[in-house]
């Protein structure tokens, strides 16, 4: 644990996939940090690089075709990218655990849920079989499964989607991780079950002070659950902010558009705001700012079309915005624009 309370610090992460059709730069220059005990949300649409960022932290990028080409991932002041395969295995699943979107396909159908949790426990901790089973039962109780002593001997298909996700969470927290990466943990679930699962994560976090890296496309979940958030678009962070400032005063045109285009309960207008166009594919990213073809401000601006803005701290003398707010847009108020001789 470093002294400034930062558990995970990602600096300049770049991940590319080398495919037959060319190099897909899925993640470019992504930097953010997650404090101990906080929920940090990575939000964005499909293909924006949020899951690839999470998999990079777990060192689970398939190589080939993928490769982490640059950057550092410092976890508890150690760069995970420099660890040997053996040492990373001691971290993965133990100090950093992950839960996935699809609770059906992430559990093995031919083993009981107990066997799967016990396997995870005994892989990382020196526990006797019987003791591991006791822990597994206790974990199931902790995630709110009724009658855990019986459920521990059931197979995944005997459980509902919400219960399977609880089992996934039980498995993930069985080794008391310091960081839990939750990749769309509730996307496959119904809203009432989603609320239960998110409440459960909150409650577990409170008990153990673990950090959660929450990956989602749902801005509502971010607003309700996260302290800090990075909005990703086309492989880069467009905006990095504390949650309240982001929703009160979004600065990047993409964030603004997303927030406006959401159908909200009680909305009585005839039409929804739309962001024109579609999310670009990693092999066909536009030049300049990747959002400029869809941007109401940048679509006709020479600088936006040619030069990609970097994620920068805003220069407004610590006024309206908290100092750790960052944005990548030439037109954001307070965004420093070094003169470019090419323009």
């Amino acid at each position, binding site marked *: 644990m470093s002294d400034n309370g930062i558990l995970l610090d990602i600096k300049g992460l770049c991940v590319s996939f080398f495919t037959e059709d060319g190099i897909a730069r899925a993640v470019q220059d992504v930097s953010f940090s997650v404090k101990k005990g906080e929920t940090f949300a990575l939000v964005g649409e499909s293909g924006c690089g949020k899951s690839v960022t999470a998999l990079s932290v777990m060192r689970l990028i398939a190589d080939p075709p993928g490769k982490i080409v640059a950057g550092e991932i410092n976890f508890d002041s150690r760069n995970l990218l420099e660890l040997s395969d053996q040492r990373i295995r001691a971290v993965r699943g133990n100090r950093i655990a992950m839960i996935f979107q699809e609770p059906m396909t992430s559990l093995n159908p031919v083993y009981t849920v107990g066997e799967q949790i016990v396997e995870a426990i005994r892989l990382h901790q020196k526990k006797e079989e019987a003791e591991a089973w006791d822990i597994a039962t206790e974990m199931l109780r902790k995630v709110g499964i009724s009658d855990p002593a019986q459920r521990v001997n059931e197979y995944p298909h005997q459980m509902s989607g919400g219960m399977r996700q609880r089992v996934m969470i039980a498995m993930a927290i069985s080794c008391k991780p310091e960081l839990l990466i939750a990749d769309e943990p509730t996307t496959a679930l119904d*809203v*009432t079950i989603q609320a*239960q699962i998110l409440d459960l994560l909150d409650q577990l976090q409170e008990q153990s002070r673990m950090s959660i890296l929450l990956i989602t496309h749902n801005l509502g979940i971010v*607003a*309700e659950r996260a302290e800090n958030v990075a909005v990703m678009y086309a492989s880069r962070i467009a905006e990095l902010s504390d949650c309240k400032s982001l929703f009160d005063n979004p600065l990047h045109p993409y964030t603004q558009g997303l927030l406006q*285009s959401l*159908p909200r309960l009680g*909305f009585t207008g*005839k039409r929804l705001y739309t962001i024109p166009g579609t999310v670009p594919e990693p092999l066909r990213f536009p030049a300049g700012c990747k959002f400029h073809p869809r941007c109401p401000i940048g679509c006709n601006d020479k600088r936006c079309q040619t030069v990609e803005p970097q994620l920068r701290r805003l220069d407004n003398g610590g006024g309206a915005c908290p100092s750790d707010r960052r944005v990548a847009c030439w037109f954001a108020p307070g965004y420093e624009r070094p003169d470019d001789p090419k323009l």
Partner: protein
Amino acid sequence: MNSSISNNNGLPRPPLGVPNGSSEAKPGFLLKVDDLKTYFPVKKGLLRRTVGYIKAVDGVSLAVKPATSFGLVGESGCGKTTVARSILRLIPVTSGKVIFDNTDILAADVTHLRSIRSGITLIFQDPFGSLNPRMTVGNIVGEPLKVHKKITGPDLTEHVRLILSKVGLPADAMNRYPHEFSGGQRQRIGIARALVLQPKLVICDEPVSALDVSIQSQILNLLKDLQQEFSLTYLFIAHDLAVVQFSCDTVAVMYMGRIVEQASAGELYNNPLHPYTVALMAAIPKINVSGQASSRRLKGEIPSILNPPPGCPFNPRCPFADGRCFTQNPPLVPVSGNDEHLLACWHI
């Protein structure tokens, strides 16, 4: 919302939701479903004996006026898709009546059914799985015209070109294959295919839930524009209450095979009465509320539909359940003072 709802105000309004024995459709409704029941037999053992029934749809009645949108909302397994499939007779229906455009669909013979079906089309959830990857977009969109209207040659091409431009696809899309398009564009192809027959009723089954957030609003707006232009009637099925509320004039909330509450979209939002509707709204993560998530949480999960609890099926999760809720299933009846707001709950 849609203006046509007020156009229909002068028409006599039959009591909705009350099972009705008369066979002819009431004037003013394009689609009327009466006490629809679709049960799936559960077979067990060597002899495949029927040991019970899954009551996927258990007495649903609804009526949709022309050029309006009727929304069915509910969680997975509540029977909303089964209602749609029963209406089209894609699955055997146990009992009930489905009157579409003054024709009883469930009583129609096979040839008649075919012609009825050309007036009802479907838009599916998955824009990846619902388009044949080996067919060009032109063939996909033109296929219904060939099958139902026997249109071929340059006529067909012209029809397809027109509808593609209506849904906002480039003219050259016709000769390309689905994989060349993004999810949102593929959903536009699916919409073009559904509209090319100029149907009266379009069943939209989760039309935007597979799409990215920034694409959802494009498709929802497109569906509204097309509705106005072609006077379409939508039966809109979705799990997202906010989407349904935006897109529909009337919204029905389903739980375990039954409609538990039905009202105009605005009324349902401003005055939700069923504890399930209230909980469903509270569970939606909201971006316009600062601070912590709502504490009104539903306990438990949807009970097994094979063994529904006696009485009101919502009683195991309901904070207000008492005496009568555990023995008698409440009927769907109009709320006093507003006969367009229907509710199935003993606690009004």
